[in-house]
Each structure stands twice: as structure tokens, then as C-alpha cells.
């Protein structure tokens, strides 16, 4: 029993906008006052316990934060960790009490990931890109991340069977196969990264747009995206197709992304880290901002949602299934580069970089992210991410929040970046300042709703008791980096910005519809094409316990 008394509650999903409300928690869930009093009296009578009261008067109360795109677990981030021993050394995290230590900074160790997310008030995070064949690895790491409920988006955009079934026009089997993949590897939703580009990468090629040829197939990226949206909607999965567009990072990316959104044609689609896709051509410069056109399109098409992928100045580690793009990054950095191809299904690249405010490119990327945030009108469809650690670590979220909420601070920082970049940007004309309500939307209510997590992102009766309580402070960075209390599943896990105890969350899995079993046609092909047995590819369901099964739409 927990009773959070007298806080200013920001719960936009339930229309509460800073009003003083009490929040009651019982059995790890939020309940209404009467239920709480009833249960509380009973419990108190039986055990001598009384509801623990948290005096939140004058404080800001929000649901726990929800991140729908962050690279937190699995082979790719572990490669990132391997590449950055010097970086870890700068941010050691000692164990304290029963809490495990580790290393932090750009690519933290698992226990530190959970701790640092919780210490910002976040309680749910979706791993952005799991390869099916190495999904066991993703789950092993997720199991070692405390404080958070977690799930995994599953890479499908260059999968041999997905492409072959689209070639064959067999939507039924495609849906069967998608359900098989999600179910047997513990995936939450469909992720596609540079669809088709990974296939051509096997000969060190790529695709340059939606209508390019894909080696060994009769289809183009357009067909893959179209089919995956269809299947996703037919299955009514909780989250729409989660797409990393073709041509990411290129001066053609904004154009390609516009075409991609058009092809969705009213069907739900999530475009991830839009900033990295919002580049247009510019004479004498690597690229220019394409934010306005993209924001205009998103503003008028409610089927589209995006996360921004804001860039943060300083070191970062780029990691993505977009292996051809990563090879082009190597050509820029000439530093460390890892590339991996996973048989029949996907590929990835990892390249450490640094974003400098003094360069045109770095400053422009930073400016484009902010332009998008300020131009995108509906916060319910535009979420805060840094594509961590691609644009910078998730621990920079409070700084980004300050940039969004505080115009004079934003302009102060903007005036320190590369002049040429700033002159080309519309940022200084954008006067918008995010409100606390809007921050609550882009960091919890919005992503939770878009992920289909009905028990997250809000504080209504029946919601999970994942709650963050902040001291209001005009320095919004200070405010959001040091919550007074964070409550996870009804337990206080953070006090005064410090984790005080570890707890372990649940794996988020979709409630998959029943479909035809794929084994009869898939197993023989699988035996030909894969080097592990079909049965070992599947992960036992109990491996995902404790889990929460999320209903489909």
C-alpha cells in the first residue's frame, strides 16, 4: 500500500493536467481512492501495516517513463561495449548495498542501464533491434537489466523467408511466419531496417531508394514495407510496423522518408529516429535540414508516429542493422568498425563516433532534431529518443527536455554551435516551449499508447504502479535527472535521484493470434539454410518468464 499525497499530477492520458490529486497504489497497481481505503483498512487491520504515505505536495507526479526505441541488450550493444573500454573507465559505477555495480557513460553494462533509466524516472524500455537467431542473447541481457519492464523489437526487413514469401505473394504464410518468429524468439513487434539493403550488402551493395532491385528477389523495398504494414495490421499487433527507412543518413533521406510515409497510405506506421532521416541536398555542404517537409507531412497524417533520435554533443556509438550505412560511417571516421552478417536474416554495423557542435554536420544534426520536436504539432505522435546510444546516451534525456521547455536556454546553446549550420536553420524562429503536459506525453503517455501498453504511461485505476515524482525546478534538466521518488510495480526504488533497491521487471510479449503452424514447410528449408536446428532456433516460452502478455489492438 502506497499513498502519494497532494502532488501536481500530469496524466495526460486521463486528462489530468497538473491538478492536485492523490494516487493510491495497491498490489503493484494504481487504484482509485475507495478501493485503496477498503483494501488498506483490511490490510492494516490484519497485519498492523499502514499505507506508506509519500508527501508529494508541491511536486510533479507522472507515470514512469516509457522509451520505445533504445539499444539496451543483445549482440550489437555488447559489441559497442567491447569497442569502448576507455569510455567505461571514465564512468565506473561501484556496487552499493545489494545493488550491482558496473560501468556507465555511452554503452553501460546491464545493471547500470536499469539503474540509470530508473534514476531518470523511466520504468519501461523497448530494445530496438533484436536479431531472431541471436534472440536468446538479447533475452539473457534483458534479464540482467533491473528496474525496467522490457521487450524486443524483432528484425525482419531483410529476412530471407519474409522476402521470399512477399516474392511469392503469399500473405497468409507471411503472417504465419511473422507470428512464428515473434512467438519463438520472444519478440514484441516487427522492426524493419533499410529493407532490402541488407540483402544487397552481402555483395557490399545497398539499395538507393524504394524502387531498387534486391538481389535474388523480384521485389523492391516498397513491397517489403507495404507487406509488413499489411501483415502487422492484419494481425493487429499492439505496435505498428517500426521502420528504419532506406537511405538513412543520406542527403536523399528526407525524400525517401516522405515517399515511405506516402506508401503507408493511411495505415499505421512508426518511423524511428526521424532526425537521421531528415536530410535534404545542399550545394557545398553534406546535407541540409529536411525537417519542415517531414513535419508537415506527419502533422497532416495521423497514421504516422515518429521518434526523433535527437543528437547530443559528445561521444556516441552508432549501432544499427543498417550495415551498408555503417560502412559509409567507417569511411568518415576511419576508426573502429564492426560488421556482422547473420545467416539468412539480418546484419549489423557498429561504429563509435562523436558529434561536435563546431562542425557543420554535427550542429545541423542537432538543429534538425530540435526543429522536428518543435515543428511536430501532435506530441502524441512524436516521442523523445536519442536512438541511444546512436545519437548519444539515454542519460541525456533531461538535457533534451530542458532544450524543449526553455527557449532562452535553447537559443543560448544554439548560438554556440557552428555558425553556418545555425544560419541555415529555422530554429531561432521557433518560439515553442514544451509544457509539462507535453513532456509527459512525449516521454510516457505517447510511447506507451503507441506500443499498445494499456497499463503503462498513465495513472488511471488499473495501471501499473510505475510512478515518477519530481521536484519542480526551473532548470528542467536538474528536475528530470533527479526524481524525488521513483516507484516501480508499487515499490519505491529511487529516492532523491539515487536507486535504493534493485527490482526486476517483466518481459513484454504480444498476445499473438493463433495461426497455422509453419513447421511443415519451414523446417525442411530451414535445415537447408541454417546451421542450427529448427528446434534450437525456438526459445522455450518459460524462458521469458516473468512476462506480461499485451493484448493486440
Amino acid at each position, binding site marked *: 500500500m502506497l499513498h502519494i499525497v497532494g502532488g501536481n499530477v500530469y496524466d495526460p492520458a486521463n486528462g489530468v493536467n497538473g491538478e492536485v490529486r492523490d494516487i493510491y497504489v495497491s498490489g503493484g497497481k494504481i487504484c482509485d481512492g475507495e478501493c485503496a481505503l477498503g483494501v488498506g483498512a483490511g490490510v492494516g487491520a490484519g497485519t498492523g501495516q499502514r499505507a506508506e504515505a509519500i508527501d508529494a505536495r508541491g511536486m510533479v507526479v507522472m507515470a514512469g517513463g516509457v522509451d520505445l526505441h533504445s539499444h539496451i541488450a543483445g549482440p550489437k550493444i555488447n559489441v559497442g561495449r567491447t569497442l569502448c573500454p576507455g569510455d567505461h573507465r571514465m564512468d565506473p559505477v561501484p556496487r552499493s548495498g545489494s545493488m550491482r555495480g558496473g560501468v556507465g557513460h555511452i554503452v553501460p553494462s546491464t545493471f547500470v542501464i536499469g539503474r540509470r533509466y530508473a534514476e531518470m524516472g523511466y520504468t519501461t524500455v523497448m530494445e530496438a533491434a533484436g536479431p531472431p537467431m541471436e534472440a536468446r542473447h538479447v533475452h539473457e541481457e534483458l534479464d540482467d537489466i533491473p528496474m525496467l519492464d522490457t521487450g524486443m523489437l524483432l528484425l525482419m526487413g531483410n529476412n530471407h523467408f519474409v522476402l521470399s514469401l512477399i516474392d511469392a505473394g503469399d500473405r497468409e504464410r507471411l503472417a504465419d511466419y511473422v507470428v512464428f518468429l515473434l512467438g519463438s524468439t520472444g519478440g514484441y513487434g516487427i522492426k524493419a531496417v533499410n529493407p532490402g539493403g541488407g540483402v544487397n550488402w552481402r555483395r557490399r551493395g545497398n539499395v538507393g531508394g524504394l524502387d531498387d532491385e534486391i538481389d535474388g528477389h523480384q521485389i523492391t523495398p516498397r513491397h517489403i514495407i507495404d507487406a509488413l504494414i499489411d501483415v502487422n495490421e492484419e494481425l493487429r499487433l499492439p505496435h505498428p510496423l517500426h521502420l528504419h527507412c532506406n537511405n538513412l543518413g543520406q542527403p536523399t533521406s528526407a525524400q525517401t522518408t516522405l515517399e515511405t510515409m506516402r506508401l503507408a497510405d493511411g495505415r499505421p506506421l512508426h518511423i524511428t529516429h526521424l532526425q537521421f532521416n531528415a536530410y535534404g541536398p545542399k550545394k557545398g555542404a553534406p546535407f541540409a535540414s529536411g525537417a519542415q517537409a517531414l513535419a508537415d507531412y506527419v502533422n497532416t497524417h495521423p497514421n504516422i508516429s515518429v521518434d526523433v533520435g535527437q543528437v547530443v554533443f559528445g561521444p556516441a556509438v552508432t549501432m544499427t542493422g543498417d550495415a551498408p550505412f555503417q560502412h559509409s560511417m567507417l569511411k568518415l571516421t576511419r576508426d573502429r568498425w564492426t560488421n556482422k*552478417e547473420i545467416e539468412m536474416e539480418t546484419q549489423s554495423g557498429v561504429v563509435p563516433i562523436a558529434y561536435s557542435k563546431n562542425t557543420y554536420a554535427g550542429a545541423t544534426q542537432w538543429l534538425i532534431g530540435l526543429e522536428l520536436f518543435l515543428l511536430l504539432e501532435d506530441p502524441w505522435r512524436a516521442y523523445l529518443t536519442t536512438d541511444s546510444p546512436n545519437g548519444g546516451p539515454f542519460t541525456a534525456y533531461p538535457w533534451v527536455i530542458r532544450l524543449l521547455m526553455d527557449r532562452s536556454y535553447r537559443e543560448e546553446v544554439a548560438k554556440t554551435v557552428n555558425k553556418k549550420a545555425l544560419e541555415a536553420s529555422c530554429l531561432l524562429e521557433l518560439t515553442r516551449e514544451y509544457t509539462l503536459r507535453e513532456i509527459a506525453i512525449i516521454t510516457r503517455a505517447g510511447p506507451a499508447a503507441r506500443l499498445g501498453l494499456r497499463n503503462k504511461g498513465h495513472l488511471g485505476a488499473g495501471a501499473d504502479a510505475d510512478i515518477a515524482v519530481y521536484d519542480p525546478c526551473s532548470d528542467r534538466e536538474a528536475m528530470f535527472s533527479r526524481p524525488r521518488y521513483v516507484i516501480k510495480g508499487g515499490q519505491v526504488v529511487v529516492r532523491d535521484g539515487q536507486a535504493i533497491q534493485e527490482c526486476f521487471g517483466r518481459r513484454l510479449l504480444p498476445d499473438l493470434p493463433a495461426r497455422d503452424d509453419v513447421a511443415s514447410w519451414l523446417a525442411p528449408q530451414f535445415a537447408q539454410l541454417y546451421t542450427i536446428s529448427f528446434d534450437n532456433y525456438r526459445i522455450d516460452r518459460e524462458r521469458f518468464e516473468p512476462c506480461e502478455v499485451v493484448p493486440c489492438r
Partner: protein
Amino acid sequence: MAAYEGVVCSFCGSLCDDITVQVENNAIVSMTGGCAIGRNRFMSPPEANVPLVRGCETSLQEAVDAAARILSSARYPLVYGLSSTTTEAQAAAVRLAETLGASIDSTSSVCHGPGTVARQMLGIPTCTLGEVRNRADVVLFWGCNPVEAHPRHFSRYSVQARGWKTPDGRRNRTVIAVDVRKTLTAKTADIFLQVEPNSDFEVLTALRALTNGASLEGDTFGGVPRSQLAQAAEALRGAKYGVILFGMGLTMSSGCQHNVYQALMLARDLNDYTAFAVIPMRGHGNVAGAEAVMTWLTGYPFAVNFSRGYPRYSPGEFSAVDLLARGEADAALVVASDPAATFPAVAAARLRQIPMVVVDPQFSTTAQVAQVYIPSATAGIAAGGTAYRMDGVPLPLRRLVDSEYPSDQRILNLIEQGVRECFTS
């Protein structure tokens, strides 16, 4: 009688998962698939060992208590081994090391550690073994001898294996071998470069130069005639999908990480022309898992020290051989490995001097000189869990028979509990 199909063999880094095992009366009675190494391990279970404290038979609990006392009273404990057990047990070992403020190291530091250091400096273009089977038309083995160390590697993955774009198996591939002697692997190669001992770096550098079209003065490089190198360079550049597989001949010869660095640079250069991958030929069944687990829990792949309460990494400082050779470690916990038999003499001698706890299904040479020996259930036979193939693909290990002793994971958790009690009492 029960039959298990798709069983994973975890007795080398190939992790073949096509084994069928028959079990009767809690014993494996027959097995199909698998090479001689795997067969030997599956078909001859360890003797019925018992927990020992200073050579005397005792109960599991007594042995665990003794282990906890030894480790908790040490000033500088070392946790070592890990590569022949499950990732679950490896994670338990890291946790124990963290609780103890110990150094923890895996067999990586005496096999592929230098390769890992090179990967930290440079990264690696790599792929899963299925890509090798399905696509690789040029395969280069450098300082490794899979015919003897990974007996089914050729047929399942890299040489005779028939795959998607390699329907004719061996005939679709050019095989190059580089070694200091004509190994069984080298005998099967189309091109064999015999290098003088400890000149791998020189040969790699010359090969890189030729691959990039540079002109070189000199007739031989590290004992290899220029004409042979040129032939190899042409084969590499002509690959549609090339793979370099390297072993301890590269990581443990003079130059160590610099050798691997040069091999990685060679592959990086080749990726400007064609697809090229590198895969370390890991020996122990789950040594790749040991590196993965340590990396996600501590940020570092091996040679980690917790004495300050947070992980620090320093190969040469916190690696087991060095800690022992300098006489720093004053107690050791050895899990699923046999350092007393394999370490250099000075390090092995120190190991025999200090109080040592061994957790292992086998009563190994190391176990025989330990103060405390705790037998455990063999991973992949009597204990389940996860193991990572040399290419990072995780596979499930199953419990096929019951053992009277718990898994490594369970024993390590019990020791950790004991250590916590010692610290608080």
C-alpha cells in the same frame, strides 16, 4: 529409454547441434552425430566424484562452507576458468567475484584474449558460420587446425559444407592455410603458406600490401616466397565472400594482438572490394559466452578486477597468469578448467601454493591439488543452460541425465551466499 534430438555438443567452439542421444537408466547409452571428441565426452561420464576438503570426503554443504571461508578471508582472491560451463554459471561467477572484490578472468586470456584486444582496437567484420557455409568461396585458415581441434567444422561450416550458394561444397571453395607446419588442415588446402615461427605479422603485412596492389621489395617474407603470397592475395581479392578463420597460432605467437590487428585490417581492406569476414576459432565450448557475459555485466571481456567495488580492466595486470606469476593472488576459485595442468610453470606453482577451490565435473589435475573440490553436473549433459558458439550464436544446453551434484551455477550461488554470510558475521 528416451531419445533426444538436436542436442548441442559443447565440447568445442563449433557447438554442433545435430546430435541424437539415447538415455537409459539415467545414462547415455548411444549417440549419433558428433566427432570423436564429442563422443568421448558424451559417452564417458566423469567418475562418481565426491566433495573433498583437504583430500577428505565431505558433504556438499561442508565443502561450500569451506570454500566460502577460504574466499572470504583472502586478501586478493582470483576467480578463473568459466569457458566450459553455461552462461548462467558464468554470470554467477561474475556476481561472486563482485561480492568478493576479486579479480575474474577466463581462459580467454591464455587463448584468444589478444584477438579480443585487437577487436577492441579495431572492431571486426564478421558473420555467423551459416554465412560461411552458404556463401564463402574463399576460406583462409591462419594458425588453426580445425581438422584436429574442431573436427566437424569443415563438414558443417567451412570446407566440404554444402550451402545455398555453395551447392558443390569443397569444389566451390578455394582453401588457403597458413601455419608454421604442415598440419592436417594445411594438407587439405589449395594454397599453403608455411611461415617461419613468429613471423605472422611480417607475412600478414606483406599480404596486406600485395592485396592492396602495393609493390614490395624482397623475395620472401617470414619464409613465404613472394609468388605464393601474390597467389594468395589474388585469391583473396577474387572472393565473392571470403572468410579468415584464425586460431592460437596467430594470437599466441610473437606479436599477439598486433597479428590479429593486421589480419583484421586485411579483412577491412578487402571489404572495399568484396565481402570479407573474420571469425576467431574459439576452442572451448562456451568461451565466447564467457566473454559475452563479462562484457554485458562489467563492460570488459576478461581480466577484470573488482577490488574497488567497480570493474576495472587490465590484461597483464588482472589476467590470471600474471596475477599468479607475480604472487599476488592469495586464494583462487577455479571453475570448469584445468589451469594447474596448462598454465606456465611459475603461475601453476603459485596456484599449488595458495588455498584453492575447484568446481568441476572432472577431478582434474587442478582439482587434485585444491583444498576444496566440489564436483558439479556436466554442462550440456547433466546441467542445462546456454552456450555461445564461436560466432556468437547462442544455443540451449539441455539436461539429458540427472546428476547427484548441482550445476556450476547452483554451486557458485551457494558459495556466494556463504561468502555474504562470512562477511556479515
